[in-house]
């Protein structure tokens, strides 16, 4: 690829009917860019869990995909309640998901942990009552 690729997707809080739409679109873009299988898998997991956290907890947010020759970069920024205790939120199994959210199969408390596992670089920052920002970088193998 000679040119970097960039696109931003907006995600609406509480809209579970469209959950996964941004992730599916991002995966299609990466497939067209012939990103290899394992990188595709890691990116799909990281983007999906990010998208679902915006929908589950925030009012709205943006996911920006940036692809260059060496890396997949995903920036996730939302406006919402933010996270009071990030270390706690990162722990597998910790969840504040409501009953409504759990009934749909979310709320295992695995999302952030899985994003981190799939990332070569993962940074999370959050301001209570303002919002949360994730910076995710996944290296493209063999490049």
């Amino acid at each position: 690829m000679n040119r970097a690729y960039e696109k931003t997707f907006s995600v609406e809080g509480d809209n579970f009917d469209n959950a996964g739409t941004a992730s599916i679109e991002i995966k299609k873009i990466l497939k067209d860019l012939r990103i290899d299988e394992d990188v595709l898998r890691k990116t799909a997991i990281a983007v999906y869990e990010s998208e679902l956290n915006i929908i589950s907890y925030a009012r709205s947010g943006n996911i920006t995909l940036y692809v260059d020759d060496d890396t997949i970069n995903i920036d996730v920024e939302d406006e919402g309640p933010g996270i009071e205790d990030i270390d706690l939120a990162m722990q597998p199994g910790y969840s504040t998901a409501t009953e409504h959210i759990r009934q749909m199969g979310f709320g295992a408390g695995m999302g952030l942990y899985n994003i981190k596992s799939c990332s070569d670089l993962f940074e999370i920052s959050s301001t209570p009552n303002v919002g949360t920002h994730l910076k995710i970088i996944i290296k493209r193998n063999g490049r």
Partner: protein
Amino acid sequence: MKLRHLVERLDLGVLCGEDKLESEVNGGYVGDLLSDVMANSSKGNIWITRQSHQNIIAVASLREHAAIILALGKKPDDDTIEKATREGIPVLATDRPGFEIAGQVYALLSNDRSFRAGTES
């Protein structure tokens, strides 16, 4: 193993994806927690669940599952089938519990060359 073979042997209802029954199934995963299924299932798996909300389709599409089996007589929401058709994910149905179905899928697949036990993550 061809999806069609599993459908016939397990007597599964085909709710959508009739045109995808020639695709290959290489293993399976059982789960009702979407972030668990996202992380631990594999491409080409058949996913056995009792979740019937349309959110299961995005998961199956992103992980490129061969099909979803709704166990224990779970009826999908209308928009689940609509979305599945759009994403090309076959949705299959059975009245029997997930444990039984998983056991039978495993038994049939374990004789198959394409079968990969366990998960790759």
